[in-house]
């Protein structure tokens, strides 16, 4: 536990919402407005999934594992099913690989757009939330059409995928990608040209290259510090070995860098989606798989929107796994959050945490301010800290992001008539 100096105040924050597997609780030590130490308590969202997985069949586990996280449910499902197929020695049809990759990249698109909106909300740029989430709906509609559900798609099964896609579906995907690509260009413009936003996000939540490596950070969070790692390229799976794409890295090493990486990854995803549609091979979408999986072990790695997801599965010859071990990307990144928050202002906390993209939703988080000097207990909500942060930046740094709302609305109004 951080020690209190005479002028230090401890601020417990949390439990957060969703995010991560575990909405966590932070205990911040503040000197004035600056964060001097962070202590993180995790586990509020611990559900006992690994244990439950041992008592369910592989098919039932498919359903369970998808629900580790609703935003990247396909990621977890993929990581798991790939491990099981490896143990069982199953080779799935080419068309199934492509369909899986299709859903994977669509998931990345919806997730990054979601993130953009949430990040905008955290700094007072609410129009960005409205526009990006409205764009996201185009992807949700595609999911509903292709898989039957907006979220938690249930597309994967042992041996392939559960549904095929029609030529009409593929044409529709291309149309949606064209539209989203145009709109994303506006978001990139905003991210690279609006000095208010740039100033707000720069030098906040800094994490050096070395710290990323030592603390095991993954995904866009790490790539924004120059760490050139992306499992899709480094350890290809599904159809990625046959697609051309760039791994986006950046040198800013701060929240601004994490923003740039994500918007540019959106553009890469659009490129990949077109390639997938054009190259979609013919053939079956599934092969039959026995219910019992032989004894064996597999370690599966998958690049989820948030970073690398890792599953380890051990089969014992029955229809239930011996062991299922999951490490979601946010858990890896959480270990770097304390470092990121050091020497930042309390006003920065919402956006720094949001920048690791912890499956957050902007709702009730309770913050308790323990003023050890005055011995008072003030209770603040996250929303009050968020608003306080926005006000603080307006007053102390002259950064008013509300002005950007009008500017973005103007740009988008031209492109968006629906």
């Amino acid at each position: 536990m951080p020690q209190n100096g005479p002028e230090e105040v401890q601020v417990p924050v949390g439990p957060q919402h969703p995010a991560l597997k575990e909405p966590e609780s932070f205990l911040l030590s503040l000197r004035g407005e600056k964060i001097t130490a962070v202590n993180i308590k995790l586990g509020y969202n611990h559900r006992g999934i690994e244990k439950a997985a041992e008592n369910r069949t592989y098919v039932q586990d498919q359903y369970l594992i998808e629900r580790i996280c609703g935003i990247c449910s396909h990621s977890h499902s993929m990581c798991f099913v790939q491990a099981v197929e490896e143990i069982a020695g199953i080779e799935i049809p080419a068309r199934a690989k492509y369909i899986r990759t299709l859903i994977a990249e669509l998931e990345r698109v919806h997730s990054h757009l979601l993130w953009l909106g949430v990040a905008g909300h955290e700094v007072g740029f609410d129009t960005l939330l409205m526009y990006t989430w409205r764009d996201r709906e185009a992807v949700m509609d595609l999911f509903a059409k292709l898989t039957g559900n907006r979220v938690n798609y249930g597309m994967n099964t042992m041996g392939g995928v559960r549904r095929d896609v029609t030529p009409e579906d593929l044409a529709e995907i291309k149309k949606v990608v064209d539209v989203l690509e145009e709109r994303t260009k506006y978001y990139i413009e905003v991210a690279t040209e609006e000095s208010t936003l740039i100033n707000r996000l720069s030098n906040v939540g800094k994490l050096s290259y070395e710290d990323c490596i030592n603390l095991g950070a993954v995904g866009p969070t790490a790539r924004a510090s120059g760490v050139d790692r992306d499992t899709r390229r480094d350890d290809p799976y599904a159809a990625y070995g046959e697609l051309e794409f760039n791994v986006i890295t950046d040198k800013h090493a701060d929240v601004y860098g994490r923003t740039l990486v994500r918007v540019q990854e959106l553009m890469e995803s659009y490129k990949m989606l077109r390639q997938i549609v054009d190259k979609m091979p013919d053939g079956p979408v599934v092969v039959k798989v026995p219910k019992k999986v032989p004894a064996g072990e597999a370690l599966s790695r998958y690049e989820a929107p948030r970073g690398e997801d890792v599953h380890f599965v051990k089969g014992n010859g029955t229809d239930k796994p011996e062991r299922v071990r999951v490490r979601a990307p946010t858990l890896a990144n959480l270990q770097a959050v304390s470092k990121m928050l050091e020497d930042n202002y309390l006003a920065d906390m919402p956006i720094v945490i949001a920048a690791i993209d912890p499956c957050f939703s902007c709702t009730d988080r309770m913050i308790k301010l323990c003023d050890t000097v005055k011995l008072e207990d003030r209770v603040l909500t996250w929303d009050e800290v968020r608003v306080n942060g926005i006000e603080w930046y307006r007053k102390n740094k002259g950064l008013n992001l509300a002005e950007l709302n009008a500017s973005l609305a103007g740009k988008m109004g031209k492109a968006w008539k629906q």
Partner: protein
Amino acid sequence: MSSIKQKILTWARIKSPWVIHFNTGACNACDIEIIAALTPRYDLERFGVVLKGTPKHADIILCSGPITRQIEDRLKNIYEQMPAPKFVVAVGTCACSGGVFQGCYSVKSGIDKAIPVAAYIPGCPASPKALIDGVVKLLSSLDDSGDNKAQKELNPVILGEHRE
């Protein structure tokens, strides 16, 4: 409280309920659908629903997720901070019954194991349309029963499985 004052309060609540959202261990799917319900496509705000950050001003609490052991006290605490009359909406199958996490050692099953639930909205996740339908049904069921006592007798609204 006089019945006229009660009727005015009820009217105010129906016309513009203040809502808070609390995740009690969910996978986030329901959470993002709740937020999606507030964005322009579904626009819950046109019903006067306002998302608030604090329980002290809220009429309705939207709960997503099954209750994990660690979050239970927090949930009860937040519920107690809400002024009466207050209504709990269980959003998603996990909040209704524990869902896919039933039987997990760290999960205590549905929200109603900890606090009384006024409306159940199943779905995995509950879609924004189902959410709006559920909230509107809950508000309509409040029409004539502004009395505090009625809350205990309130038959919970259970929404049929809603598929788009």
